C-alpha cells in the first residue's frame, strides 16, 4: 500500500496551480470554521471549568437587581455544609466618568472572599493585604493588563449608582486571563455611605462554598426554605447554572455562529468535490490504460481517493494553523469590548484543532468518493472508445 | 496573392534549435488550388501557419493580398484574418455549444451586418456545402464529414479571397474525404478563391492545380496537379 504513496503525491503535483488553489480554498475555509467554533467552544469550556467547583450563588428570586438584607449573610454562613459565604454588591464604579463603567466592580466581604474563592489561586499575601487594608482592591488580570496597573497602584472610581468617589490601593491580581472583575471592601463602602447619610443594609447577592459536591442540592434547598415567605425570597443555584443563565442571551448568536460554520464546512465539500471530478475527468485515458495493463479497480479507486484526502487533510492542517494567527488578531480587536464575556476569548483549543483535521479528512474522503468510484469502474473498452 | 521571400522559422525545443523552415521563397497566384506536401516533419504545417498569419517567421517577408504581414500588430493581424482568410482544420474545430448555423455565423459577428443579414449569409454558405436542412443541429449530432462541411461553410461565409486548410481530410473516411476535396475544388472553380491546403492524402493530387513540395524545411519545387488538366470532377463522386 505505502509503495503507492509517491504516486499519489506525484499526482497532486501534476497540476500545481489547481492543487494550490484547492488547497488554499480549503485552508481558508477550515481556518474560518475554527474561528467560528471558538465562540461555542469557549462558552462550553468556561462552563465546564465552573462545574468543577462547589460554589453556589444565592440571589433574590425576582432578579439579580433586586436586593436582599445583609443579615442573610450570617444566617447562610451558619448553615451546615457551608464552608463560608461572601456578600456581593454592585458598585458600578467608573475610572473615567465620561467613558462610563469599563469593568464589573463589586463590594465584597474582605474576611471571607479568600475562602469562598480559594480556587482562583490568588496570592495569600494579596488576600491578606485586602483583608487588612480598608481601601484594598483585588483585580482580575484582564483589567490589570488593560489599564497597566500593578499591585500597590492607586485607583479612583466614581460610582454611578451612589454619590461616591472612592480611592483604592490594589492588593493583588486575580490570576485568570479572562477575568475582568474588581473587588473592593464592603466595609469601606458602608463607611462612605454612612458619611452621606445613606442606608446600607442591603446587598445584591451571596456566594457560598459548600464542603462537598454531593451536598450541594440539599444545602441549596435548605437555604431557600430558610428564606421562604420572608421579605426577600431567595433562589440558590450552582455557579455553573448561574453563568449559564447569565449568558443565555447569547444562545441566539451562538446558534448563528454554528449555522454559519456548517455552511462553510459545506463549501469545503463542494470545492474539494469539484477539483476531484476535474482531475479524474482528465485522466480517464490513462486509467483505461492502467486497467488494460491489469490494475484492479479497487486499487485505482484507492489511489484516487487517497489523493483527494491527502490534499484535503494537508490543507486542513494549514488552515488550523492559520486560525491560530487569525484568532490572535481578532482577540486583540475584541479586547476593546469585554462585555462579550466568554465569547471574546477566541481561544482555539486543541479540541477545535482536532475537529478541524477530522473535518478536513472526512471532507476529502467524501468529495473523492463519487468521482473516483465512477472513474475506476468504467469499462476499459468504453473509455478507450470515447477517448481515442 | 501570396508571396514568401526567404522565409525561415526556427524555435527552441529543450536544448536544441529546430529549423522548421529554411529560406523558403515561393509564390501562389490568385485563384489557384495548391497542395503543400512532403514527409512528416517537413515543415508544411509551419509554412501554412505563416502564410495564414497564424504565426510569424523568424526571418524573411510574407505578403498576402498585397499586405506585408510583418507590418501588422497582433490585433491588426486578427482583423486581417477575419476579412481575408477562411480556415478549415483537421479536427473540424466547431464550437460544441453552438448549432451549425451559429457556428457558420461566427465570423460574421466581427462585421457590421445585422442579425437578418448574418442569418441569410450563413444559410447561403450552408446551402453551398449541401447542409441547409441541418442548420439547427449541434455538432454532436453531425457526422465527421458533415462537421467538416460546416467548417468549410464557416470558412467561406465572409467571402474571403483565400481559404487555407491543415489536413482537411485527415480525420475523414474515403467517401467524405472525396466530398470535401470536391467542395474545395468548387470554391476555386466557381467562386475564384485561392485555396491552399496542407495534406499527405494522395487523393488530393487529383483535385489541385499545383503541388508544392517541402522536405526538411526546404522548398523542393512544384509539379502540376491532376486538376490542371481538368481530370477531376467539380464535386468529388465516390468511385
Amino acid at each position, binding site marked *: 500500500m505505502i509503495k503507492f504513496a509517491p504516486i499519489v503525491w506525484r499526482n497532486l503535483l501534476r497540476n500545481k496551480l489547481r492543487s494550490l488553489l484547492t488547497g488554499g480554498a480549503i485552508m481558508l475555509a477550515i481556518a474560518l470554521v475554527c474561528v467560528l467554533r471558538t465562540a461555542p467552544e469557549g462558552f462550553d469550556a468556561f462552563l465546564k471549568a465552573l462545574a468543577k467547583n462547589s460554589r453556589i450563588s444565592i440571589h433574590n428570586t425576582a432578579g439579580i437587581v433586586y436586593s436582599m438584607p445583609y443579615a442573610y449573610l450570617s444566617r447562610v454562613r451558619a448553615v451546615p455544609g457551608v464552608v463560608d459565604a461572601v456578600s456581593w454588591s454592585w458598585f458600578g464604579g467608573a475610572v473615567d466618568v465620561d467613558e462610563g463603567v469599563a469593568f464589573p466592580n463589586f463590594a465584597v466581604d474582605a474576611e471571607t472572599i479568600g475562602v469562598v474563592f480559594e480556587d482562583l489561586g490568588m496570592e495569600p499575601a494579596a488576600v491578606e493585604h485586602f483583608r487588612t487594608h480598608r481601601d484594598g482592591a483585588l483585580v482580575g488580570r484582564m483589567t490589570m493588563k488593560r489599564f497597566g496597573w500593578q499591585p500597590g497602584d492607586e485607583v479612583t472610581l466614581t460610582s454611578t*449608582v451612589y454619590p461616591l468617589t472612592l480611592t483604592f490601593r490594589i492588593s493583588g491580581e486575580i490570576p485568570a486571563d479572562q477575568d475582568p472583575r474588581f473587588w473592593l471592601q464592603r466595609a469601606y463602602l458602608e463607611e462612605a455611605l454612612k458619611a452621606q447619610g445613606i442606608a446600607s443594609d442591603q446587598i445584591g447577592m451571596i456566594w457560598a462554598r459548600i464542603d462537598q459536591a454531593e451536598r450541594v442540592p440539599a444545602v441549596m434547598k435548605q437555604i431557600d426554605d430558610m428564606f421562604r415567605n420572608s421579605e426577600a425570597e431567595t433562589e440558590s443555584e450552582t455557579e455553573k447554572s448561574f453563568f449559564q443563565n447569565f449568558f443565555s442571551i447569547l444562545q441566539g448568536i451562538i446558534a448563528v455562529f454554528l449555522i454559519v460554520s456548517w455552511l462553510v464546512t459545506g463549501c469545503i465539500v463542494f470545492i474539494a468535490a469539484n477539483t476531484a471530478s476535474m482531475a479524474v475527468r482528465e485522466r480517464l485515458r490513462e486509467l483505461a490504460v492502467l486497467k488494460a495493463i491489469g490494475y484492479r479497480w479497487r486499487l485505482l479507486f484507492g489511489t484516487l481517493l487517497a489523493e483527494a484526502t491527502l490534499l484535503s487533510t494537508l490543507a486542513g492542517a494549514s488552515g488550523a494553523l492559520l486560525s491560530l494567527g487569525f484568532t490572535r488578531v481578532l482577540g486583540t480587536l475584541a479586547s476593546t469590548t469585554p462585555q462579550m464575556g466568554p465569547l471574546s476569548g477566541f481561544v482555539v483549543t486543541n479540541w477545535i484543532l482536532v475537529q478541524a483535521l477530522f473535518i478536513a479528512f472526512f471532507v476529502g474522503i467524501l468529495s473523492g468518493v463519487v468521482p473516483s468510484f465512477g472513474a475506476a469502474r468504467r469499462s476499459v473498452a468504453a473509455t478507450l472508445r470515447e477517448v481515442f | 496573392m501570396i508571396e514568401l521571400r526567404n522565409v525561415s522559422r526556427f524555435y527552441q525545443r529543450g536544448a536544441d534549435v529546430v529549423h522548421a523552415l529554411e529560406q523558403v521563397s515561393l509564390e501562389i497566384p490568385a485563384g489557384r488550388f495548391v497542395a503543400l506536401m512532403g514527409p512528416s516533419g517537413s515543415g508544411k504545417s509551419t509554412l501554412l501557419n505563416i502564410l495564414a498569419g497564424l504565426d510569424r517567421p523568424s526571418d524573411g517577408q510574407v505578403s498576402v493580398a498585397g499586405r506585408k504581414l510583418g507590418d501588422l500588430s497582433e490585433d491588426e493581424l486578427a482583423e486581417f484574418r477575419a476579412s481575408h482568410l477562411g480556415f478549415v482544420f483537421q479536427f473540424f474545430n466547431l464550437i460544441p455549444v453552438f448549432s451549425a448555423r451559429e457556428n457558420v455565423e461566427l465570423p460574421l459577428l466581427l462585421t457590421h451586418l445585422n442579425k437578418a443579414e448574418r442569418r441569410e449569409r450563413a444559410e447561403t454558405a450552408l446551402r453551398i456545402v449541401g447542409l441547409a436542412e441541418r442548420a439547427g443541429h449541434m455538432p454532436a449530432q453531425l457526422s465527421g464529414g458533415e462537421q467538416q462541411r460546416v467548417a468549410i461553410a464557416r470558412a467561406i461565409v465572409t467571402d474571403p479571397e483565400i481559404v487555407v486548410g491543415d489536413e482537411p481530410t485527415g480525420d475523414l473516411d474515403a467517401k467524405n474525404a472525396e466530398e470535401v476535396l470536391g467542395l474545395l475544388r468548387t470554391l476555386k472553380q466557381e467562386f475564384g478563391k485561392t485555396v491552399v491546403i496542407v495534406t499527405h492524402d494522395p487523393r488530393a493530387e487529383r483535385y489541385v492545380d499545383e503541388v508544392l513540395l517541402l522536405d526538411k524545411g526546404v522548398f523542393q519545387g512544384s509539379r502540376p496537379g491532376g486538376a490542371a488538366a481538368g481530370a477531376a470532377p467539380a464535386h468529388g463522386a465516390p468511385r
Partner: protein
Amino acid sequence: MALPLHYPLRNLAHRRLRTALTVTVIALVVIATTLFLGLVTSMRRTLATTGSPDNLIVLRKGSDNDGSSAVPLEAYQALRFFDGVAKNGKGEPLASPELVVQPFFFTEDGGRENVLVRGVEPVALEVHDEVRIAEGRMFVPSQGEAVVGRGVASRYRGVELGEELRFGRSSWKIVGVLDSDGSSFESEVWVDVRELAADAKRTIPYSGLRLKVAPGVDRDALIRRIEADSRWTLGAKPETEYYAKQAESADFLFILVVFLAVVAGFGAAFGATNTMYAAVQARIAEIGTLRALGFSRGTVMRAFVTESVALAVLGLLVGVAIAVPLAFAVSQALGGIAFGLSTFSTSVITLRISVFDVAVAALLALAIGLGGGLAPAWRAARLRPIEALRKG
C-alpha cells in the same frame, strides 16, 4: 462586435456538474455572509434606531445605561421646570421620570433572562413619540397593570394580553401591547413607576429622566445647564446618542462579519478560478479557433470573465433565495435573537435580511466572479491562434 452573451452562458449549461458545484460554493458563501450580516444589521437597527434626537436622557453622571443609575426626586422636580423643556397642550412639561429594573423572565424553553421593566408615568407616551399602544390600552396608574412590548410578547412565558404576569414580588395584569417600529422599547415592559419602586424596594425612586426639548431651543445649552447644576451630579445626552453608544457593542460583531466575508470570499474565488482554468484548458482548441477566425484577445477575455461573473450571479440568486427564508426560520425557532450584555437587559432582535444585506452579498458575489475569473480569462486571451490546431 463581440461574442454573444449566450456563448458563456451555454458553456456553463454544457458543463453541468462543474457549474453546479461552483455555484453551490458561491451560494453557500452568500448564505453565510448574508445571515451573519443580517444578524448584525438587525442588531444595529434595533439598538441604534431607538430614541429621538429631540429627547434628552438624564442619568447619574458616568452611568452608561439607565438600569444602573439613580436620580433623586428633587432633581426631577427641578429639571422639569427648566427653560427649554417642551410642554404639551395642557401646559404640562414633557418630562418623564423613569425607574428601570431588570427582573428575571423565563423564555418558552426555560431560559432565564433579565428583561427591562420601565416604571413610568402616563406622560411617558407623550415623551417617547415612537411608542404606540398597538393592542389593548395603556395601564392605569396604581392598578397593578402593565403593557408589554411586541418583542417581549413573542419571547417569554405568561405575557399574553389579559394574562397575569409575575415578576419581582408581585403580579401584574397585562392590558396592552406596545409597538415602536422595531426599536428597543419593544423589548420592554412598562408599569406604574410608584408600584415598581415599591416592589423593588428602591429608596431613590427614579433611575433617570427623559426630557423633550422644546422646538427652537439650543439643545446643547440645555445639556450644559443640566450638567453644570451643582446640586446633583447628572449627565445628559440626546437619546439617539445614548442608544447609538449601546449599538457599539454590536460593532465588534461587524468586524467578524467583514472577516467572514473576506476569507470566505477568497475561498470561493479560488474555487471559481479552478473551475474557470479547467474550462479554459478544455477549450484550448476552441479558443485558438476563435482567435484564428479573427476574434480579438479582448473579446476572448471578456467572454471568459462573463462566464465567471455569470457563475457568481447564479450563486448569488440561489444564495439569497435560501438565505431569506432561512433567516426567518432561524428567528422563529429561536424566538427572536437576544442581545444586550452591556445593558444588562435583553433586547429582542428579529433577524431580518434587508435590502442592504442583499446588496452587500451582491458585491461580494461580483468580487468573487471577477476576482476568480480574471486570471483564467487572461490565460485564455493569451492563447495563440495556433492552438486551434491542437486536438481538442
